């Protein structure tokens, strides 16, 4: 039994240890504590596992998220195959995924002036909800948000138009959406050799 020399650290504090954000004082405090506390050793190992598994999931193209250009650049460096579309507000795109795509990225463009966060809903043309997201961050002055979907998820989507609606997270109920986009989904394609 390794005794606890002081109050245990939170998983959040311990996760800082794996980032470049931790100050030398934070690092010293975490290390000194972990080397006398078995419970926090387990938590630090869990935080390490978490960061590595998150990376694995992204590299496998299995993540659905709103991302940045920096993250897309990292995906490119890691050799992840990304198919990209760009759409203006009110626009539509005939979209499909190919058998070697891993992530489908759509740049959703609109006037987001004064908006700091968005909510999104995706519906099939039958009205059935296909996906939902809340609190999508919008940097000041940004004119697009970048949505990444696993290609595998898109492959399984029904071959019908899918409508995506963006609203300000601060909008009152009944307020008009900021933008709508239509994905004319054409399913999954296979490349033929020769």
């Amino acid at each position, binding site marked *: *039994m*390794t*005794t606890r020399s002081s109050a245990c650290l*939170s*998983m*959040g*504090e311990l*996760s*800082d*240890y*794996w*980032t*470049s*954000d931790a100050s030398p004082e934070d690092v010293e405090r975490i*290390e*000194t504590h*972990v*080397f*006398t506390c*078995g419970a926090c*050793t387990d938590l*630090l*190992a*869990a*935080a*390490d*596992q*978490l*960061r*590595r*598994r*998150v*990376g*694995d*999931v*992204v*590299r*496998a193209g*299995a*993540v*659905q*998220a*709103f*991302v*940045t250009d*920096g*993250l897309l650049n*990292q995906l490119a460096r890691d050799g992840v195959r990304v198919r990209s579309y760009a759409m203006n507000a009110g626009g539509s795109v005939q979209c499909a995924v190919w058998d070697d795509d891993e992530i489908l990225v759509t740049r959703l463009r609109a006037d987001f002036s004064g908006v*700091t*966060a968005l909510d999104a809903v995706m519906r099939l043309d039958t009205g059935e909800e296909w996906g939902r*997201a*809340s*609190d*999508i*961050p*919008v*940097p*000041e002055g*940004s004119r697009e948000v970048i949505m990444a979907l696993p290609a595998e998820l898109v492959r399984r989507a029904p071959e019908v138009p899918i409508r995506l609606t963006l609203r300000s997270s601060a909008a009152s109920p009944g307020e008009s959406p900021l933008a709508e986009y239509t994905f004319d989904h054409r399913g999954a394609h296979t490349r033929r050799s020769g």
Partner: protein
Amino acid sequence: MTGPDAAPFVDRPDGDLAREVASAPAGHAAAAEGELYRRFARRVRLFGLRYLRDGMAADDLAQQVMLIAIERLRAGEIRNPDEIGSFILSTSRMVATGLRRTERRRQDIHMRVEVTEPTAMPRDERFFDADRIRPCLASLRERERTILLLTFYAERTATEIAVGMGMSAGAVRVARHRAVAAMRDCLEARRSA
């Protein structure tokens, strides 16, 4: 009544184990040495992962540091065995500095330790697997998920993320702590389910 010496090793404080190694003739406290190794090698390995950024180098560091610690205990050269954690941490820092300095030395240590310390390195692979991570990631709010991906996948600092997301660095750190806590709760719930 059972005395403290009869308590299972796993329940004994670090200082007790270190004292037992220090007071026994060299090599006659194998169980206490094994328990110290089990407890501390993974801590040194975690330390090594942060500083050396390489699993094999971290393994080497852990084996080298534990070898030094056990040898110094056996030789009675650690003045206060209750401070064994502190000794191992400072030794880790010293050895890691040396390991970073030259790759050739790392390879030398690897060859030497493989011969002298055959004990398997403890692994921390049991906590989370990708099948549980995916749904837990999906359950986060978008902002928190984006921050987690930028931190742990793209290895961006809070300041860099803050610039890209129109937030303050402090707010990014708070959101990241919240996301990590939510992930842990979700993963624990799925593990016990």
